[in-house]
């Protein structure tokens, strides 16, 4: 009890389970008021930016790919595009399309991992994917099979499924042969059915009633559903190119976290949300007819503001990525050259792309010899963190009747809605010791 007689509750989760990387959540409640919600993050956030300084302009695609085991292609894509921008390099359409195919592979494997192994257990009353595998092994097998198709695409285009090594500034080191790419057609065709079944499956889950009002921010392109290109737009009027990103978005230090919180300048609160919900809501008309129909059949409107339904949006995006990959595979012809020659020069370049978790922005300043003078990386989780904390506060306030254990568990679920990659945001490392029972 507090000195004014009101009950003080503290909830804490030392290491968030099933969130990429690990972080800690802290909630302080006084009476019926949520006083503070924080995602605690301890690791110095700018390690990779410091590591890149003084390195050659050719190195960021491979170094930054190691920031995250789940979204290396996003790091490679944003970094090469930023450096190509600094060097005045324009890649051919063939190369860009091959990069999009690689990106499809990452979306498929990342979304399949999150849907089946990390998020679905929350809706099925299972503690973990292990419990789900014991009760419904065919479901987990289906998810792993879908994930494997994404890995296969990454292995063919990127040279290997983990931390692809084939992307370079100016293009690729080697373009895969037509037969190598054609071998993906069968698995991707079969994956279409699995992806559609996945949308139907998650569409049947029961979702808590909860909606937020954050500004949605995502890339938008004149033709494509956004992955590797587009302008940054929002549902409150933003429309900008990558060079304007830092004019509009400010990264702030906050006391309880080593991760920087990104906010939109000039807004009252500045919190905004990037990722599947924003992408979908700002680009529904850019999805394929089949993906749009699957979304409608699963009960989604053209916009979605319930973060718990993000699992359905991820499933729709997975279906789209499979379709898109299949279309690229079918029309693929090896480019005349896998990449263009690149000559170093002094310059400043910006690049972005849509990682599975949201917008990933890179900026590099290069010296005349191509060495890196400055690197700035703004990952999606940094951008979403303020919105996640705000949602958690509202979420907790409506559920104060639950005991601490139940409330903590529901908070973890609420965090997983955003698939936060705390590794990306902070490169955080925990040293907890746990053992299997």
């Amino acid at each position, binding site marked *: 009890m507090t000195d004014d007689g009101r009950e003080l509750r503290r909830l804490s989760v030392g290491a968030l389970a099933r969130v990429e990387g690990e972080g800690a959540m802290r909630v302080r409640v006084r009476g019926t008021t949520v006083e503070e919600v924080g995602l605690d993050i301890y*690791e*110095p956030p700018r390690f990779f930016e410091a590591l890149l300084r003084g390195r050659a302009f050719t190195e960021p695609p491979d170094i930054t790919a190691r920031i995250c*085991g789940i979204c290396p292609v996003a790091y490679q894509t944003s970094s090469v595009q930023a450096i190509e921008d600094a060097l005045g390099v324009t890649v051919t359409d063939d190369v860009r399309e091959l990069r999009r195919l690689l990106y499809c592979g990452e979306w498929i494997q990342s979304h399949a*991992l999150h849907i089946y192994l990390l998020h679905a257990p929350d809706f099925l009353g299972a503690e*973990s994917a292990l419990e789900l*595998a014991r009760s419904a092994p065919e479901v987990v097998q289906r998810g792993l099979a879908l994930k494997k198709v994404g890995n296969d695409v990454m292995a063919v285009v990127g040279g290997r499924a983990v931390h692809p090594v084939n992307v370079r500034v100016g293009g690729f080191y080697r373009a895969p042969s037509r037969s190598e790419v054609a071998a993906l057609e069968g698995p991707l065709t079969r994956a279409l059915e699995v992806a559609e079944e996945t949308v139907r499956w998650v569409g049947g889950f029961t979702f808590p009633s909860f909606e937020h009002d954050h500004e949605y921010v995502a890339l938008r392109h004149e033709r494509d559903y956004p992955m590797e290109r587009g302008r940054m737009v929002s549902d409150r009027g933003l429309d900008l190119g990558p060079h304007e990103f830092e004019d509009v978005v400010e990264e702030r230090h906050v006391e309880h976290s080593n991760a920087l919180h990104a906010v939109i300048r000039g807004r009252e609160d500045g919190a905004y949300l990037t990722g599947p919900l924003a992408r979908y809501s700002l680009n529904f008309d850019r999805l394929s007819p089949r993906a749009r129909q699957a979304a409608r059949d699963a009960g989604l409107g053209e916009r979605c503001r319930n973060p718990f339904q993000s699992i359905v949006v991820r499933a729709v995006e997975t279906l789209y990525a499979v379709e898109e990959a299949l279309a690229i595979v079918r029309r693929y012809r090896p480019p005349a050259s896998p990449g263009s020659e690149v000559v170093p020069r002094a310059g400043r370049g910006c690049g972005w792309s849509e990682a599975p978790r949201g917008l990933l922005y890179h900026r590099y300043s290069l010296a005349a010899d191509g060495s890196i003078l400055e690197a700035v990386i703004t990952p999606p989780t940094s951008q979403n963190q303020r919105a996640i904390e705000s949602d958690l506060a509202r979420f907790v306030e409506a559920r104060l009747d639950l005991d601490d254990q139940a409330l903590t568990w529901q908070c973890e679920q609420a965090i997983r809605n955003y698939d936060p990659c705390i590794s990306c945001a902070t490169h955080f*490392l925990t040293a907890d010791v746990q053992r299997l029972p």
Partner: protein
Amino acid sequence: MSRVLVAGLGNELRGDDGVGPAVARRVASVGHPGLEVIVDVGEPADLIEAWRGAELAIVVDAMDAGVAPGTTRRIDAGTGGGSVPMGISGHALPLPNVVELARALDALPGRLLVFAVQGADFRTGTGLSAAVAAVVDGVADAILAEVVGVAAGFGGTRG
């Protein structure tokens, strides 16, 4: 010979978390007929697919079990006879969860060994601590001895 897989797990940009890839790279440099090495698995759930059809799979990972840095444990994970220590992981599904997931899906390899090496320093940065670097070759040799044992027909079967 039957398919044998050695896989390193860990991030080489996180100090001693990189011991898995370091050992796997050493194993790969020596090599053995029929041996397949994945230096850095990245996302551990992918091990389940990688184990498919393997008579013997060996995973090498860092651990933090509160023992002296460099201490290495050899765990026969497929038999369920020993628990797999929770590795230092920035990943979504830590190795012990993946092992149990594979067990539930009846997707374990014929035999699964985990070599877990106690780290000293897991802070972000490149390079292994001296205590851990000192055991890399020895752990690689121990793994290669297991591989040679399978090649010679001494491999165990799944329990």
